[in-house]
């Protein structure tokens, strides 16, 4: 329906999926594959939904073959398979003061959650982090739903030169610490956010994006170790109490196919260039 580039490697598109737009709730995701024969299935979070128009908004980062292929698609092209909404919706209630921490592409799934939390009467403090200014996304959207927005960049090119954990810690040190934290971003960021909030005993929800095949509970490839037991991100999550998640193991599982994925991406890039030359 529409497509744009949010930063060098981050893209967004509104995709026609009326049933998912109607049924989708904050925290849920879809699984897509570009064609039916050979494409892989990847989970993408639903950043927004418009039930009237029958569209959902997807935001993704170009990290491998499938996300690059998706980025190369044009308005009007068809994604062969979009299934969802999957996962359990976020538990929304009036917690009081909620800190929403978004890192990189994780900012996208955080937005509908922040919106719903605001609607439920929470005071929202958003911390948005990126490596550098030009990779920061959705700042305006967050400004609309937040009582306070704190921006951090790793290189100091915009906002505070800090990791998101710094302001998060400061907020936890206030006399009235936050009642709830939502942290969505790279696994390493969520790990350190949880380590920070654990010291202050502030409940912290994280949303995990592990490798999935079917995303309906059937394969178990997405499993994590939660409180020492296996849990499936697709049907038990994607949100979990971050203080009980074994992030180290999760990060290793995320890298299970790193070499093969890298090779496929390289091949795609080469192939893509050839097509360019032919023209």
């Amino acid at each position, binding site marked *: 329906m529409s497509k744009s580039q949010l930063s060098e490697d981050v893209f967004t598109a509104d995709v026609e999926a009326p049933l998912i737009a109607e*049924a989708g709730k904050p925290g849920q995701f879809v699984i897509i594959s570009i064609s039916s024969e050979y494409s892989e299935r990847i989970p993408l979070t639903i950043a927004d939904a418009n039930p009237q128009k029958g569209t959902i908004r997807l935001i993704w980062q170009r990290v491998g*073959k499938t996300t690059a292929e998706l980025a190369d698609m044009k308005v009007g092209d068809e994604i062969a398979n979009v299934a969802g909404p999957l996962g359990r919706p976020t538990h929304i209630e009036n917690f009081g003061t909620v800190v929403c921490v978004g890192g990189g592409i994780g900012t996208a799934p955080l937005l509908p959650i922040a919106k719903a939390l605001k609607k439920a009467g929470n005071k929202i403090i958003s911390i948005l982090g990126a490596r550098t200014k030009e990779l920061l996304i959705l700042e305006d959207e967050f400004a609309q739903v937040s009582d306070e927005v704190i921006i951090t960049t790793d290189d100091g090119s915009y906002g505070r030169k800090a990791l998101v954990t710094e302001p998060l810690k400061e907020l936890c040190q206030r006399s009235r610490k936050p009642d709830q934290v939502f942290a969505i971003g790279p696994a390493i960021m969520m790990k350190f956010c949880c380590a920070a909030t654990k010291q202050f005993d502030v409940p912290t929800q994280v949303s995990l994006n592990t490798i999935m095949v079917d995303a309906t509970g*059937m394969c*178990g490839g997405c499993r994590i170790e939660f409180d020492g037991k296996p849990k499936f991100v697709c049907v038990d999550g994607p949100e979990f109490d971050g203080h009980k998640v074994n992030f180290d193991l999760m990060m290793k599982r995320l890298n299970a*196919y790193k070499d093969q994925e890298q090779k496929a991406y390289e091949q795609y890039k080469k192939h893509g260039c050839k097509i360019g030359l032919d023209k």
Partner: protein
Amino acid sequence: MTEKERQKLLQQLLEKQKTGKLKPADRYEIPPQDMPAQDPVKRRANVNEVATGYTETQARLEAMRCLQCKTAPCIKGCPVQIRIQDFVAVIADGDFKKALAIIKENSLLPAVCGRVCPQEVQCQQTCTVGLKFKDTGKAVSIGRLERFVADLDQNGDGTPTVAPETGMKVAVIGSGPGGIVAAADTARAGHDVTIFEAFHKTGGVMVYGIPEFRLPKAIVQEEIDVLTKMGVKIVCNFIVGRTRTIEQLMTEDGFDAAYIGVGAGLPRFMGIEGESLVGVYSANEYLTRANLMKAYDFGKGADTPIALSKKVAVIGGGNVTMDSARTAVRLGAEKVYLVYRRSEKEMPARIEEVHHAKEEGVEFHILQSPKRIIGDQNSHVTAIECLKYRLGELDESGRRRPIPIEGSEFQIDVDAVIIAIGNIANPLIRQTTPGLQFNKWGNIIVDENCKTSLEGVYAGGDIVLGAATVILAMGQGRIAAAAINQYLEKKKLDTD
């Protein structure tokens, strides 16, 4: 026996039969016909079907081994009561079309069932010929005969006639064997049927689970095509419970009845240390990557990766275990170990699958089970630590209970582990369908007509039975469809 010798033998037998001289003793002497198969060494490197099917002569000879005994114990062993001795008799006569028609009275998917039914514990277990030789392996090969006539019909006009439209809408949830049968039988009665499938492809376990080399996808697709020709609508990427709930289907979307055939669901893990290491798969994941997502073509078009392992341990003793082990062989593993805690006698897998797995070089480690899985600093699997077992008294399943031998720990070096010890019920329908009753294992409770606690909602297959077979799922699909047809007939009368 060469094909020429077989033809000669068949001629002699037919002569005898014509003159009324063919005695049971002659039938006992006919050698059981082996299933022609791809050479084990060659097939290790391809995913094509292993068993290539009987020739016409083989089929007729095998059919002539049937004594046509009055009691027909084979029929009692068949979950859908196919008139076995009748279809075997007409195969012996060479009337293959009629044989298929007889099978189709009771079974919609003969090409599938002829391949994947566990005949040795069903129809062939009680076969008089097998009993005479005290060897079920020498029973009449009913399954192979079923497959033979089904395959002959590949391009036939198998589309059943459909009754006039009733205006009633039926939702079939899941496109596995039970769903296909339920859809066909309700469509035949003139109802407007829609199948909802969560995956992007139809066929359920027949496409994501059972490998190509055992059940070619094209065969499943033909059955789906028949449904489409009958007017059944198919909606993929539709997760009932998430995309729409059963309640929404029944109230807002105007469906008059529903059949839930969503399958088994969540893979069971062992609960041992190291199960989340990189390289540990559920059989569901391993097979789905390899089959449905065609990971064997990774880098040659397919985008879904799979661990390219050299030494693989597969845990379990069922058909899915054999499928996983044999898939690992085809993906290039040099060593594939099958680790099972009981003895080979207790294995639930079909004898033929065990035989094929061994032929392909799978090493059987029986009376052993992993105690923990060991990984390196990158959390990649490097070994499993196993315990040895001995067999004790009979347990509730009627098999001898495996008992670990203390202090018998030893290690096997592997770089992948596939856990194939069964499934537990998927909670999705339970979480999203208030009023539907489940037992303590999460399986849907139904009556003898597969009717659930909800009005107009029926269920069958693995979500009701726990892990079962294709034929049992089909049987339930058939029972449910009959009940749905009856229910809708009454509903129509009431509303008219």
